[in-house]
């Protein structure tokens, strides 16, 4: 079978695939305590703002697919990092820092993304870097092995898989490898960190509950487990010996699975279960997880570096010990539920009946549909993982082992639906055709299959999480991209909805659906650039399924190239924070599309403002222990990758500079200390060191306008923001007897406040879920009514990820209703929704989002 998505995602695995085995985390154990893993992870206390910043080594890929570009690759990398940054239960923040010169030194932990010539068949690689002899470090987050630096290797040639960069597979590969770099190994739940052959992620669902749990176990916020369920127990063989490295999975009928591996003493704990009703099963590591030669799973070691091995294969069973999912126990998990003592006794056996099954569906390229009874001879495309049209009552799924012969199961069950009514081998026994009925009206999203093999004592099962995806229409396709003359482009095609996202190469073009077409604003392009235009829907389908490597294209006009004219200042001393102002010629800077970086993990961009098409302002901090010397300044605007000279971190300047000069640590709204957006005429508070030397000798100006200083202590200065300032970034200058310091402050209107959110099924809140693709309506108060005429002033975000605003309308009692699309999955987690006007955001409104 060959198909578009197979070509994009699975072909390499099918013929060349690198086994994707590993362990959940990179673990070390004390021999005296084999139930408590000590994980390798970043030290949050060593990271600025608890943020690990990844830099791309500036040589970039050497060879590109035709019309592919470095800017597109960087856009994909930035989005992949943003996916991990959007995990609300994790205290670790992940950011994209721009470019870095090869060989750049830094004393702050971070990540590097390099492009190297990978051998054919290798899509990408990721690794944390730790000291050669594991150094177990204690701290407020418990014992761990600190990651000093992480490495992600992506292909040096986007003309080979997983490229070109605009294919979804390039993005999901980047997400996966970054997961390794953060300290995660593989699981078998079809989530981002799953082995490639069974992975079922997309732009719409780049990471899932299993990934979020894995990250949160390493970096969870205090009490993060209180918002999730926890289940624990032991796994032993029938002779009571413990099973080490068994995979225990909690799986609901509808929703994502979450898993863990048993410790060497057989104990397990699954954290991070979104509220749902689960069944529990345990399966052995697949045969390709640990093989001779050290391939695959990086086994845990003891404190002396001696490897701790997995124990042998056993029959997969649902709790409390059945191969029949209808006989399995169910566990109702709510926030804070902690169920203990769920112990498995498993029966050892040699081998497993299946472990690398791949599902396919038939896609009719003319009707853009998944027929349950494909006609003979039709020119179908085969896509994997399979899609099932849940507006029909019946469905056909083809299944095949990724390698070797496909063993036909005796029965196949879809959790929450029931058994297949028929399955048979066909095509020289290469594939198994499985027919389901009774699926009409069962909604959208992934579903799980259970394959049953044999009977009696030899009975065994294989559970394939997220084996199929329910959808209610076929994939989108893009027929044309036409410039409108005003900077926007009209995208025509089929299968669009309010949740459709349009991408120009690897960058999203913001816009809104207009009936059968979508009007978008393309990302800032390079003069004369040709971009592939593709559409992605929240059900996981995209236009590449139908159009493959022949997408619609858009030709950017020929324009003058952007160049950086000035970076002021070009240096800051270690241990200081200050304003850096950047001006450009022929710039096309757009908020949300610009990255500014200083080429070293020792220099942090705390916040960046686009003050105009040619003007950037940023608050920048140089770490107190920064490695001295020059580093590369880069500005990435859309597809434009602009070199901006070098930055100098001055050696030895810290001590003398810090002696008396003011150092600003933060600037907040005096009336709302949680906000960093100030109102003109309101109060501002500066925190830092040596910031005040008394009101008579401390002066504050904002955009050159003197501000009234109310209080000026050593660590805090209170002032009145001058009235009459326009919304946007403003340069604040603080001068006292010790010197001066500059900082960018944000002037904005009062933040709107979210009163409620509703969706297609009523209220959406911490106990009522939103689904990917839902159009949600939030009721807000305190909104400037003039925003109705300029929706670009509004930013709605779910867990920090921007969502498209469809419309704003007046509501009752002076309130307003904002309609937006939840276009991404969050794995059933509780996530905050925020709305910002001109950058001024109020408190987050918690909702549960599948």
């Amino acid at each position: 079978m060959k198909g578009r998505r197979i070509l994009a995602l699975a072909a390499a695995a099918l013929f060349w695939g690198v086994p994707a085995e590993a362990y959940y985390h990179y673990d070390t154990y004390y021999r005296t305590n084999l139930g408590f893993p000590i994980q390798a992870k970043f030290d949050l206390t060593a990271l600025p703002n608890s943020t690990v910043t990844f830099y791309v080594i500036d040589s970039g890929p050497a060879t590109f697919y035709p019309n592919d570009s470095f800017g597109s690759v960087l856009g994909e990398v930035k989005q992949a990092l943003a996916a991990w940054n959007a995990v609300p239960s994790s205290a670790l923040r992940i950011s994209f820092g721009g470019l870095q010169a090869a060989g750049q030194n830094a004393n702050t932990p971070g990540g590097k993304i390099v492009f190297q010539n990978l051998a054919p068949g290798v899509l990408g690689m990721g690794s944390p870097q730790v000291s050669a002899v594991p150094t177990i470090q204690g701290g407020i987050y418990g014992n761990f092995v600190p990651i000093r630096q992480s490495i992600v290797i992506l292909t040096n040639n986007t003309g080979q898989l997983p490229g070109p960069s605009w294919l979804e597979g390039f993005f999901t590969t980047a997400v996966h490898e970054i997961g390794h770099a953060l300290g995660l190994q593989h699981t078998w739940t079809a989530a981002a960190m799953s082995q490639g052959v069974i992975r079922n992620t997309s732009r719409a669902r780049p990471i899932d509950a299993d990934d979020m749990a894995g990250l949160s176990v390493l970096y969870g916020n205090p009490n993060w487990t209180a918002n999730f369920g926890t289940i624990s127990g032991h796994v032993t063989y029938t002779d009571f010996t413990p099973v080490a490295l068994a995979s225990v999975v909690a799986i609901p009928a509808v929703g994502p699975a979450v898993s863990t591996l048993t410790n060497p003493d057989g104990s397990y704990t699954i954290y991070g279960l979104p509220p749902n009703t689960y069944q529990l099963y345990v399966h052995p590591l697949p045969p390709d997880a640990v093989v001779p030669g050290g391939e695959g799973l990086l086994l845990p070691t003891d404190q002396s570096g001696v490897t701790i091995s997995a124990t042998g294969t056993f029959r997969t069973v649902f709790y409390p010990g059945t191969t029949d999912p209808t006989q399995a126990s169910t566990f109702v998990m709510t926030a804070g539920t902690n169920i203990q003592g769920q112990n498995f006794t498993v029966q050892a056996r040699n081998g497993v009946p299946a472990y690398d099954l791949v599902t396919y569906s038939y896609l009719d390229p003319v009707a853009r549909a998944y027929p349950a009874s494909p006609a003979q001879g039709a020119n179908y495309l085969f896509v994997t993982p399979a899609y099932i049209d849940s507006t029909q009552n019946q469905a056909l799924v083809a299944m095949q082992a990724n390698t070797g012969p496909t063993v036909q199961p005796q029965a196949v069950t879809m959790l929450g639906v029931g058994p297949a009514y028929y399955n048979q081998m066909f095509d020289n026994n290469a594939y198994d055709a499985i027919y389901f009925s009774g699926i009409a009206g069962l909604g959208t999203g992934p579903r799980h299959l259970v394959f049953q093999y044999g009977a009696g004592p030899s009975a065994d099962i294989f559970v394939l999480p997220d084996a199929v995806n329910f959808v209610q229409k076929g994939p989108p396709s893009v027929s044309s991209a036409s410039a409108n003359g005003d900077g926007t482009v009209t995208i025509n095609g089929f299968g669009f909805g309010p949740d459709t996202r349009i991408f120009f190469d690897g960058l999203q073009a913001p816009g809104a659906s207009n009936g059968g077409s979508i009007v978008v604003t393309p990302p800032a392009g390079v003069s004369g650039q040709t971009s592939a235009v593709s559409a992605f829907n929240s059900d996981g389908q995209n236009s590449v399924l139908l159009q493959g490597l022949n997408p619609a294209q858009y030709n950017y006009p020929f324009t003058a190239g952007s160049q950086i004219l000035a970076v002021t200042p070009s240096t800051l001393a270690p241990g200081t924070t200050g304003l850096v102002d950047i001006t450009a010629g022929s710039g096309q800077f757009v908020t949300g599309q610009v990255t500014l970086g200083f080429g070293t993990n020792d220099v942090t961009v705390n916040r960046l403002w686009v003050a105009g098409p040619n003007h950037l302002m940023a608050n920048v901090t140089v770490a107190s222990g920064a490695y001295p010397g020059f580093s590369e300044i880069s500005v990435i605007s859309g597809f434009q990758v602009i070199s901006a000279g070098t930055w100098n971190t001055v050696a030895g300047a810290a001590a003398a500079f810090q002696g008396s000069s003011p150092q600003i640590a933060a600037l907040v709204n005096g009336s709302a200390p949680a906000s960093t957006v100030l109102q003109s005429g309101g109060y501002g508070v500066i925190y830092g060191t040596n910031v005040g030397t008394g009101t008579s000798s401390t002066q504050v100006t904002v955009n050159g306008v003197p501000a009234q200083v109310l209080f000026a202590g050593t660590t805090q200065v209170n002032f009145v923001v001058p009235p009459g300032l326009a919304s946007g970034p403003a340069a604040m200058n603080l001068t006292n007897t010790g010197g001066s310091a500059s900082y960018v402050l944000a002037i904005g209107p009062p933040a709107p406040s979210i009163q409620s959110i509703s969706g297609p099924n009523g209220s959406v809140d911490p106990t009522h879920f939103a689904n990917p693709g839902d159009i949600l309506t939030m009721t807000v108060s305190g909104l400037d009514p003039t925003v109705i005429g300029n929706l670009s002033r509004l930013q709605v975000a779910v867990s920090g990820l921007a969502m498209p605003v469809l419309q704003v309308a007046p509501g009752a009692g002076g309130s307003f209703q904002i309609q937006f699309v939840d276009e991404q999955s969050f794995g059933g987690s509780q996530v905050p929704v925020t709305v910002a006007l001109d950058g001024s955001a109020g408190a987050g409104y918690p909702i549960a989002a599948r």
Partner: protein
Amino acid sequence: MNDLIVKSTAIVHAKVADSYTAFSGPVIYTHYKLQIIEPLKGQAPAEFVIPGGIAGGQRQFFAGAPAFQKGDEYVFFLWTNDQGLTHVMGLTQGLFRVSAGGGSNPALTRDASHEEMVDGKTGRMVKDHTLNMRMGTLRTLIKTTLQRSAQ
């Protein structure tokens, strides 16, 4: 198998003679020196690399990367990139272990990742997916594949 043969820049029957580690940019590679027994395609390289290892007091570990011991004997399907680093094709896909004995025609085994399967009806092992062949068969396969590919 055809892709392995065609896309590799060299195929060699060799033993691992020695190893060392070094950084290439920020990435640690373990370099394995080869003692060539028989070149089967292309010019035999002196060594190949596997990402990961210990260098400069630091350790990196990449999922899917195999490790070798001195004296390990394989047929290696290798690919040299434009930076001069030689990799094993598909990491483990391009490795055929050579069994001891067998003279000039030893048995070869590819430790495929998927070697164990159970008959669903009987519960018995039905097939080991490990790929086995004799050296002579591989020589012939390489020769015929390259001839077809050149046509």
